[in-house]
């Protein structure tokens, strides 16, 4: 009887510790998602600083910023996939982080849409994914909710994605993503 009791106790303790370990891993991953999102916004802010600094300058540095934000957003999406694989579902907070990061990458792609015709398609893809991820039951949609980090474009401060998209006349460009499939956008060649 005592043996059964001890074995049962051990199983419970082991199960609990495994649970605690799993929770610690999840916390760590979520922490990383938050940290990476902060870096994504940081890169976007730095990119805007670069663009406002000398509007005539584009080229290598703009491309480098785009590549950098892509690396970070890919890491965020990897973490998001890991959560999905671990639990078969994801939390709204994780979905929102992934959606916001995708949105910033979409905006970054747009900066070079005139130069590279595939950029607009990439931006649309990210934008659609972001909207899909942010479909939740919250009263306030993601685009209208307050951003966790400040975004500076030139000398203007933005605290909501909706304002950012509207003010830069990019919202309408993004809406075009749904209107056209193989049509012609105002950017570059036909897509």
């Amino acid at each position, binding site marked *: 009887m005592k043996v059964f009791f001890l074995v049962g106790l051990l199983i419970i303790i082991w199960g609990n510790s495994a649970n605690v370990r799993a929770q610690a891993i999840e916390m*760590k991953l979520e*922490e*990383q998602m938050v940290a990476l999102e902060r*870096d994504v916004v*940081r*890169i976007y802010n*730095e990119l805007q*600083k*670069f663009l406002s*600094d*000398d509007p005539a*300058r584009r*080229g*290598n*540095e703009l*491309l*480098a*910023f785009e*590549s*950098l934000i892509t*690396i*970070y957003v890919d*890491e965020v999406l*990897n973490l998001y996939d890991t959560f999905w694989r671990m639990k078969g579902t994801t939390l709204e907070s994780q979905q929102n982080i992934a959606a916001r990061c995708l949105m910033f990458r979409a905006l970054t792609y747009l900066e070079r849409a005139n130069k590279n015709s595939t950029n607009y398609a990439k931006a649309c893809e990210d934008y659609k994914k972001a909207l899909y991820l942010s479909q939740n039951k919250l009263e306030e949609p993601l685009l209208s909710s307050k951003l966790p980090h400040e975004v500076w474009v030139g000398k203007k401060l933005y605290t909501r994605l909706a304002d950012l998209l509207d003010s830069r006349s990019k919202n309408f460009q993004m809406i075009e993503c749904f209107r056209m499939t193989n049509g012609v956008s105002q950017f570059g060649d036909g897509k």
Partner: protein
Amino acid sequence: MKKFCLLLLIIGFANVGGVLAQPVSTLYDEIQQSYRNQDYGRTVDLCRQIIVRCAESVPDVECRFTDVMKNVYRLKGFAEYNLYLKDRSIVTLDAAILSLKKSYELFGDPEIAFNFGYMESLRAIEMQDGAYLDGLVHAWQGILGLYAKDEWTVSQELVEKIKTFINQSVELTITPADSAVTNGIFTSFMVRLACDLAEKAYLGSQDSLFFRVYRKRAVEDEFNLRGNEWRARGFSAQKDLNNYPDDYNYRTTRRYLELAYKHAKSTERQAEMLKELTKVALFMEKEGINNQPEADLQYAREKAQQAYKILVDRGADIPLSLATEIKKVYGNSIFRLVNYYFSFADSTNRLNAYARAKRVGEELLVPDGFGRRQKFQWDGYEDLYLRLSEIGYEIGEKEFAVDMVDKAWKAALEANALNQGNLCAHLDSHSASELLPFARVYRQIAERFGLQPVLHWLRPIIKCIAENARNLTSKEGA
């Protein structure tokens, strides 16, 4: 002989056949062995053999193993890099980068991404192509991947990689001025990101200092790329100006050099840019295209004056060669302006023009150090003194004129390494022709102001100078 050739051919075929007969697995073992033995040439050769074998229509089964192929490309890349370290050929470095990229495509090892990123930046540094930033992006991708792989902890090994990354970033930004076509924001940002990541680890005092210093430089200075860039653009525009001297090129050059001066972080750079601005304005006045000679000369004088002030106040920061150049352009700008006003006197208010010329010229005569006769040694002083003595003659200022012509005469003698005592004995034709204008002005002044003793010793000297100078003229005529 024919039999011998045939034998050689047979042996050759046998060898080729032997190699071809070797399975990929054996070749793979050999690659690892030769890489361990640091036989990099053979490693590359064997890797190529495997790649060729795997491209065949029915390849060995190992060709389908990602683990084998990523290692083949990895070892080939590192072996090629080692060969590059010996031969320093960019072609070999390119081959190494391509091999490692292929390995990365097959498996996505962040260590490999860091390595080929490093090599790409190295290539950009070697080629002095400061605008090539892909290497930094790829290396950073590797660093971030390694950070994730280590469960989001920063190991000492990663800290070393980050230090390498920072060093390369900085080196890339200081490629020669002509290639500094980026504005440094990206590089500066990358250094800040790198410092942030490294500081997540427990750092020793040396490492901590390293990252603090580089962050500070990146934040405050942005590696002076703003200044470097404008300097590069300025020099490039200056070349255009020299080839096609027009107002547009002149304005562009001046604007870029002024921006380079504005963004200059060091005293040396400030002085250099001011000197260049002086040169550009003097050049423009000489070309006489924009019809604003006075404005150009005044501008040149102002910039040279500023450069000289830096030299006087903070001379320890200026290298000797630059100091000499600054003095030269300062002297030239003053002399040219004096000359301009002097020549102007014929067509306008004479006295006013002479007074201006005198005032400008005197700027160079005021000593800026205790017990000094003049500001600095400049090889054009005798001409300036001569011109000023002529001005003194024209405006009737006896003391000034005599003082200047005396100085001019002495400076001319010194420039020709002559002594007044036995001048005629050592005078050659060339020196005589150089001295003649000085002697004539001296005589004019002496005559006008009644300096009889001067005329007394000057007459015989002028006579011998004129004779020697005439010899030169007749030689040239002949």
